[in-house]
């Protein structure tokens, strides 16, 4: 297990050194994207239109924050990760077409995302789900917001972060997917669980 302090932008070479179980702390700029954000980004890219931000060598965070507007400035109140499994239907294509390097969420992602991480050089890392107050402490500033018409949770937030972590890597670019491995282990425990209820 290695601990990495990464500053955005992050090169493919650096990302390819990271392995499942490693801990990341990220400083720099992080973009939020949830279901509607991924969908819109792919629609724009597939019709040849530019995105309002460049995800290449950057970090995407699966989050729909609680925000407060103070004067003209947005303030992040609470911002833990959302369940990444919902983004499985978009993420492989998103990685391929944007060149994003680090994906942050919770709960793990599936085979297609893991394959894309391997092929295009990206990693998926988790922050403790529900720990929204803790995550907000690492966010120094909201640098901007795009696509507010999608609603506050789904908008694309541009966040300045300092030592955002600990993030535990659960998919690396070498083809490992921690949660898939974990599910195999849990599968072996199913029999015992059934026997406790008399089956």
């Amino acid at each position: 297990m290695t601990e990495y302090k990464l500053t955005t932008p992050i090169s493919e070479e650096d990302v390819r050194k990271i392995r499942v179980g490693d801990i990341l702390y990220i400083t720099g700029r992080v973009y939020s994207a949830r279901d509607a954000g991924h969908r819109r980004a792919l629609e724009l890219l597939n019709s040849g239109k530019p995105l309002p931000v460049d995800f290449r060598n950057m970090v995407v965070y699966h989050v729909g924050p609680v925000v407060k507007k103070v004067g003209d400035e947005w303030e992040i109140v609470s911002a833990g990760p959302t369940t990444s499994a919902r983004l499985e239907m978009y993420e492989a294509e998103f990685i391929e077409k944007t060149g994003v390097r680090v994906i942050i969420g919770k709960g793990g992602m599936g085979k297609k995302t893991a394959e894309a991480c391997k092929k295009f050089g990206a990693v998926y890392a988790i922050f403790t789900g529900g720990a929204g107050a803790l995550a907000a402490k690492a966010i120094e500033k909201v640098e901007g917001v795009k696509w507010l018409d999608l609603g506050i949770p789904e908008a694309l937030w541009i966040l300045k972060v300092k030592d955002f972590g600990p993030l535990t890597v659960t998919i690396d670019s070498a083809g490992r997917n921690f949660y898939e491995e974990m599910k195999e282990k849990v599968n072996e425990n199913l029999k015992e669980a059934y026997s406790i209820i008399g089956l």
Partner: protein
Amino acid sequence: MITENELKESITKLVSATAIYLPEDVKKALNDAYERETNPVAKSVLKSIIDNIRVAEEGKKPLCQDTGTVIFYIEAGEKFPLLGKLPRILREATIKATEITPLRPNAVDIVTGKNSGNNTGEYIPWIEWDIVPDSDSATITVVLKGGGSESPSLAKTIPPGLGIKGVLKTAIDVIFEAGAKPCPPVVVGVGMGPAADIAMKLAKKALLRPIGSRHRREEIAELEEKLLKAINALGWGPHGVGGLTTALDVHIEAAHRHPAALSLGVATMCWACRRASLRVTDTGVEFLTHPFLGGE
């Protein structure tokens, strides 16, 4: 007697506090899980959960960014003077709490996808009613139900021949499939009855019971113990990293069933099991789960 405005203020305070402060029984269960845990990664996940609870309390900020769908459970006396005004009071309190806390706006139009911006909309906040005979007081409970922990929820009807074991097996399968997605350690509610909607409502209502409490019927209390043990034997652990505590507790509620149907509901609640209650009587408001609100 309390006025409509005073009650609205108290409920606003209650909803807001629900997003920030977990009930004592949930905090204790999480601390106990931390003390018990032997897997170092799981222990560090539990530590960040406990740290997060503290940071939220100190900063008076929502502990999770998903401040949920607002659901009210009302036990109202038949003679409670503000009975008919409650739907409006609850709606207005939800809007006010969204603004002052702030809560994340989580009410989205089914067709257009437009967010209402204030956590109210068609049928939302959702309200469940129980009328209590011969009473003039009311107990109001709010639950903030996160979206991620809703995804594994399931209601189905199985052949009665599969029996209660069939119900418990389904609950185990739900937690097995859910993995890390609903933010374990979860609280699991299981409902049983003659129809899928009844079973699901009971499953949800089961989540209101304090952690560690057992069903009044001994046979069902034993089922709760067994199912809790079985779910924790799966070994998903906190956030699915492996470990001793996949569920903090299991609660079961059951209605009499139809001879030809055994329906079941499984409801999962994330570790941020946010619920709070107050009681209104002719002498005033008592905050049952968050007594410190009475002094604010």
